[in-house]
């Protein structure tokens, strides 16, 4: 069946709020619509809801400080802190902040990001990392090929495109932030650099009911020899950029971001840099690996479509589940497709729904 046509899902009408709110002052704002939500009972709207919305007073206790997603009325003498976004409240010591339900990626120092070069300038690249502003990667923040630690010369500036040119993908770390929130990246480590041998995908940055979350490890290697169709010990690297950009590729020993642990020591970095760091030529990739890369991509899509978070644990579990599903349905041809119903099944199996 090449085409699946779904009825508009029942969820949206349930979320639609039927409210003939009359603004009669005595009528109050008694809005209906809760019935369809399957929530236990109606409750007072503002007070005990865990969701903050713009303009809502969080506290007027002067002991708290305001963080992201909050504001104080300028000029007012009171210490009233209000929410400026819709989201959940987070406390860090005395700092109050509201995490938005969904927003574009906001860079933080130390984030591992996947980015795409959109502009090449004289001494730097401008990189799309899915944030509100383009990040920049100065020429001085990359490892030059040749294994020598040296100053950047005019020759390097002239051939800046040979390192990265428009459209190319790279993995980097946020080194510094400007006042307006723009990030400065660096790739001065063996685990960072140009990406090849795989596929790119982008999921919503933070929130949005799913997306990549900051975790202990953003890059990991999946063993695909579990699928009995795969011969040999092939591995797949998964790179979950904190910014929601994801790179799934064939694993190459001693290369790539997942080589964090297995990579050579700091002294050897400069020597080995330059072999394949700026290559845009793919290696020969076995068909099995390609298929499993597509499967991993499908798993991530299914996680996102079903509002689950994307991190190492979920992807690893999801992949194992997907392999199981494929084994069960050995007779049917298209076991790779993890959209729609199949994606839902996978997600349900994962969270035990």
């Amino acid at each position, binding site marked *: 069946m090449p*085409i699946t046509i779904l009825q508009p899902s029942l969820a949206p009408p349930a979320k639609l709020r039927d409210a003939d709110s009359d603004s009669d002052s005595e009528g109050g704002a008694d809005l209906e619509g809760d019935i369809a939500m399957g929530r236990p009972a109606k409750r007072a709207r503002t007070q005990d809801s865990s969701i903050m919305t713009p303009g809502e007073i969080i506290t007027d206790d002067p002991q708290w400080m305001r963080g992201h997603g909050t504001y104080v009325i300028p000029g007012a003498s009171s210490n009233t802190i209000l929410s400026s976004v819709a989201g959940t409240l987070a406390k860090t010591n005395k700092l109050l902040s509201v995490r938005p339900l969904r927003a574009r990626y906001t860079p933080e120092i130390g984030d591992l990001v996947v980015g795409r070069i959109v502009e090449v300038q004289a001494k730097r690249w401008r990189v799309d990392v899915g944030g509100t502003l383009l990040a920049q990667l100065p020429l001085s923040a990359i490892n030059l090929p040749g294994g020598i630690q040296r100053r950047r010369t005019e020759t390097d500036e002239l051939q800046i495109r040979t390192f990265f040119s428009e459209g190319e993908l790279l993995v980097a770390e946020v080194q510094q932030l400007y006042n307006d929130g723009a990030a400065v990246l660096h790739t001065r480590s063996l685990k960072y650099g140009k990406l090849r041998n795989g596929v790119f995908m982008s999921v919503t940055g933070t929130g949005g009911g799913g997306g990549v979350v900051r975790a202990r490890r953003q890059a990991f290697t999946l063993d695909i020899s579990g699928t009995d169709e795969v011969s040999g010990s092939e591995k797949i690297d998964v790179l979950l950029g904190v910014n929601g950009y994801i790179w799934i590729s064939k694993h190459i020993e001693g290369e790539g971001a997942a080589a964090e642990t297995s990579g050579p020591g700091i002294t050897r970095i400069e020597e080995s840099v330059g*072999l394949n760091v700026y290559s845009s030529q793919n290696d020969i990739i076995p068909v099995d690996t390609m298929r499993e890369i597509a499967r991993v991509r499908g798993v991530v899509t299914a996680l996102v479509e079903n509002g689950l978070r994307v991190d190492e644990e979920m992807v690893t579990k999801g992949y194992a589940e997907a392999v199981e599903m494929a084994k069960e349905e050995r007779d049917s041809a298209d076991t790779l497709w993890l959209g729609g119903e199949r994606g839902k099944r996978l997600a349900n199996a994962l969270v035990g729904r």
Partner: protein
Amino acid sequence: MSSTSQHLLLSPAELAYLHGSLSLITPGPIRPDGRSPTQFRPLTAETGILPGTNGSARICFADGTEAVVGVKAEVEKTPVPPYEFVASTEGRKGHSSAPKKSSRKSKKTTTEDEEISMDVDEDDEEAAGVNEKARVSPDWVELSVEIPGLRDDDSGTVFLTSMLTEALLADGEFVKKLWINRRFHWKLYLDIILISPPLSYPLPLLSLTTHLALLATRLPRLKSEADEDPMFDDDWAAATFLYPRQDTTSAKASNKSPKQPSAAAAAAPASRPPITLLVMAVGDNIIFDPSKEELAVADSAVAVSVAEGPSSETEPESESIPATSTKRNLHLLSVRTIDPPSRLTPPGVPNSVNAAAWGTMTAATPTTTTAATAPANESGAAKHPDARVTETEDVVGVWKAPRGGAKFGMLGAMVAKVLERGGVAEEVLDGLEGVDLT
């Protein structure tokens, strides 16, 4: 041929990988989202979303692309040409000379006949039909496409508009449905709006949504007779569908019935609005409903318009492949090549000439030692003049934009894949027919 590509940045390594996985022969293409070659992205469809229109539909693909189509009909006076000019009009409208009539038509031709015989002597039924159709004009349909972020006169929008219009008007059957009487006709406005930013080439989405909106389109029932000023039934429930619906069993029956013109005309024709499908080829693989990334590595892409008619006697102006199917009577309306964005992509740099990769050292990947090279990198090539080889040679794992157009055999194969029995077009039509009309 038109350049319809949205600019999409992909790295040469990505392009090479995608092209490699899509052109696999042995297990078939591996699409990045795991779909089978003929599989469409799942979509959500609903009709009747706008009560203020004669017909409306909305389709959302799972990736978030969404289109809304609204159809509005207005009664318009047909400029009646003086009879002396009928002959010339008839000659000009070459494509409308097919002697096929819909049931509604044939009912009316009887009244038409009488009148014409009053005015014009010895006009046989055939000629009357021709006269009547001679006054059918493609101007009765107006189609507009709105793409966010693009101007109305953007070449992409214009190309999409003309492609969808072309499919609709190709067999001349559609406008005949808009005929009210000799003095009046319906003027149909189809407004197609892409709601989401154009994530992928929107042609199939727009076409499917238009198809659905037309299926849902209803026109008020005519109460007046013959050539009076038209009067309509106020009751919307009594309005008739532009494309009369029938249960599938009778549709099959009427299609299977022997090709007797009278019999075919008696049974309501099971014609359906056209659909335009986007098909692309990578290597020897044919892939349907390509996503933006997939289209970026297409060797060639074509838009195939297909309509389902009551009988294959109705020949569209140019090419027509009578469908082999007995279930649905599909015929080809048009084939248009789409300029795939892959042509504009920058080529990858093989390691052997990559200065930054020090590829000329043998330490590079083993594949490069044997591989031929392209002088994409001037400095590298200059340093190693022996590395300069002709551009046409391929290096495994290095992206190179496709050159040349679609191969003739491939074009044929793509069209056949659309039209074949139980093929994609049939399933898509079946799927769309299953959508509830409200």
